[in-house]
């Protein structure tokens, strides 16, 4: 009985931890894509002008 409860507890902890890892990875990926999107794809003209040469050098669609 005690062993059974320990198994359930550790499984629950493992699931939470896995969900937390996934969440943190997706937060980081979303942040990364947002940064690249702003620098490379934003239509705001000042952003375009500042990042102009980087967009051309990375072959992002520009102009």
């Amino acid at each position, binding site marked *: 009985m005690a062993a059974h409860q320990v198994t359930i507890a550790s499984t629950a902890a493992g699931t939470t931890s896995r969900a937390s890892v996934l969440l*943190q990875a997706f937060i980081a990926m979303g942040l*990364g894509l947002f940064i690249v999107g*702003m620098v490379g794809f934003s239509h705001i003209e000042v952003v375009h*002008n500042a990042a102009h040469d980087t*967009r*051309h*050098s*990375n072959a992002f*669609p520009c102009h």
Partner: protein
Amino acid sequence: MDILRRILATALAAGILAGLAITVFQHFSTAPLILNGEVYEEQAAASMPATHDHEGVAAWEPRNGFERTAYSFLANLLTGVGFALVLTSLYVLRGRPVTWREGLLWGLAGFVVVALAPGLGLPPELPGMPASALGPRQTWWVATALLTAIGLALVFLRRDLWAVVLGVALIVAPHLWGAPPPMDEPSTVPASLEHSFIVAVTISTFLFWVVLGALSGAFYRRFGGSAA
């Protein structure tokens, strides 16, 4: 939040170093070609009637020289950190040990996803080259990068035959669909300059991804500590 801290530390270190390295490389490769292309662009603009897109109040732009290079450096740093965040998140999602060598392979995949595949349909462009509307090109670019990423993951990370077939199909699909075609206008930029630029951009993005991949792999391992 240990994982997030590890991803952020890895991405900052790898992104800043790769952004610095690529700014130095671009300063001697792509940047002079862009300035050269702008000479032709301005000549063509000057010969056009006054009803031009850029009429009215001109938006701020960095002055040529140090200021322009500084903003390119900043944009490269951000691009490096942004892409490194994506790479490092993928290391976490994959859940396998990563060294600089695995990082290098992930970097090569990144080169294929955001440089090679979109560049087949939309080759690197110099200022002054005729181009179709921006929106559809950006949409095709993003769709192609996304499909290529999913396709590569299916081909390399799954062992099943169906995954390989589907992966190859996803990689080919956007090219069968076709990128928005360029406008049938004569370019103001000489063909030799365009050619040099395409080579310079391809080498520059290749080096960027090699450096970013290897560094992110190395830093990810280094910042792992007991959590690794």
